């Protein structure tokens, strides 16, 4: 690990922003990803600003929805009565990620900022455009069973590892940030980027900006939902494919459908093609299957991860069918 200076900002987000601007480093909250990356010398910040004690650990009702503070622990968010009651998809997604110990450390903001688990990103002997822009991508011709099939670029096929973010995408969350130029909001679907020519630029955050909260809107509350995750073991593993979906049927027609996928792209993937096909349609197995197939039609799998295409299609269709039968 490189050496760095450490400063703690406990009083206010503004203080954290000012300290970071002074020191040109990284914000540190739970540390579960950043400390690991620093130990591997993939992240080498000259300064850390510890934001774990900022007064942002509340979950509050707001405009019919919820505001989840940036330093709320993932475990607290998943267990919070208002989250469990109104946004069970979020609670379920969080609980499908990591271990209990990690969820007790990891924060809302940190979960959004976690970096890919691509082996080649972690292996400093490999080429990686994310780690060293312009150096090449050894995953493309390497072993890429866990890698992306949607929205890839020739420069990067890494996936975003979060479960929580899959739910937040489906629930139309908004990210609140503050920074040297003041406060602003970013729609969740715009927060993470596709790799394109700049896979090292992973989010829309500008230099020095700090996440202060994630807002959930009233419009996505109280929807019947399922989070399903397929992984290589029953617990404590990253998703091969995950699906977060919510469905509401009125008078025999689909009135609201939300589908997001994890483990398939550089960002949590909102299945907009499938949603558009299903909105207003009858909730039949054939329609679900057709929409799932259409969503995956643009997929560009490699030799090791082609199984994800069929897996994602089946998961979308079966989760929606289950919602239509049991919960809608």
């Amino acid at each position, binding site marked *: 690990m490189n050496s760095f200076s*450490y400063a*703690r900002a406990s009083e206010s987000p503004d203080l954290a922003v000012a300290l970071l601007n002074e020191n040109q480093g990284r914000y540190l909250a739970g540390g579960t990803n950043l400390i*690991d990356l620093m130990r591997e010398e993939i992240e080498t910040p000259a300064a850390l600003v*510890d934001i774990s004690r900022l007064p942002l650990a509340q979950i509050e009702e707001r405009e019919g929805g919820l505001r989840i503070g940036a330093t709320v622990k993932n475990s607290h968010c998943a267990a919070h009565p208002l989250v469990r009651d109104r946004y069970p998809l979020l609670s379920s997604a969080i609980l499908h990620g990591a271990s209990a*110990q990690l969820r007790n450390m990891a924060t809302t903001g940190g979960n959004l900022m976690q970096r890919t688990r691509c082996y080649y990103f972690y292996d400093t002997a490999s080429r990686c455009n994310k780690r060293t822009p312009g150096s090449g991508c050894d995953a493309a011709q390497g072993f890429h069973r866990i890698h992306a099939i949607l929205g890839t670029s020739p420069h990067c096929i890494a996936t975003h590892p979060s479960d929580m973010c899959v739910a937040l995408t489906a629930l139309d969350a908004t990210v609140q940030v503050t920074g040297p130029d003041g406060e602003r909001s970013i729609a969740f679907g715009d927060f993470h980027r596709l790799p394109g020519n700049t896979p090292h630029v992973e989010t829309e955050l500008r230099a020095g900006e700090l996440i202060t909260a994630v807002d959930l809107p009233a419009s996505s509350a109280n929807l019947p939902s399922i989070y399903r995750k397929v992984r290589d073991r029953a617990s404590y593993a990253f998703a091969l494919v995950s699906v977060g979906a919510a469905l509401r049927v009125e008078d025999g027609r689909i009135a609201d459908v939300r589908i997001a996928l994890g483990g398939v792209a550089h960002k949590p993937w909102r299945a907009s093609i499938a949603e558009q096909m299903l909105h207003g349609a009858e909730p039949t197995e054939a329609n679900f299957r057709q929409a799932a197939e259409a969503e995956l039609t643009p997929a560009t799998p490699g030799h090791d991860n082609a199984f994800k295409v069929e897996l994602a299609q089946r998961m979308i269709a079966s989760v929606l069918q289950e919602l239509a039968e049991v919960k809608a």
Partner: protein
Amino acid sequence: MPLHTFQLQINGDTRTLSNLDPRVSLLDAIRDHCGLTGAKKGCNQGACGACTVLVDGERINSCLTLALQYEGRDIRTIEGLAEADGSLHPLQKAFVEHDGFQCGFCTPGQICSAVGMLAEYKAGAPSAVTDGEVGELAGAELQERMSGNLCRCGAYVGIREAILEAAAQ
């Protein structure tokens, strides 16, 4: 880079760490600087759970965080679970009784994790396998809730029996 002098509260004792490099993890501070070698360094990347300690009653991986971040927080390690008179914590007793270990390397982490897990369970916290209300602590519920602790000897049968007995008390 500047060094830091600060205090950690471990098992009710105040420990002063002088001129500490900010890179020192909480686990290394507890083991190497405070001499409490119960918590173990297994993978040093949050995968095995051998480093599990309790902070303000909640279980965490002490390897994945900086000691400096835990200044003034209430830290409890395996050394702090027994009573002052030396009588063992119910989970420690149950692990002995049910042979919840073989080599013992993962045991401090398993027991600290189980202490935190039972507190979460009793507070009604859900898990990934909870369907609706929190169900009985057996089978899938217990396995899911303890999945952050690996035992390479495979003493899981004894570990499970020990935790279930302590949970029933």
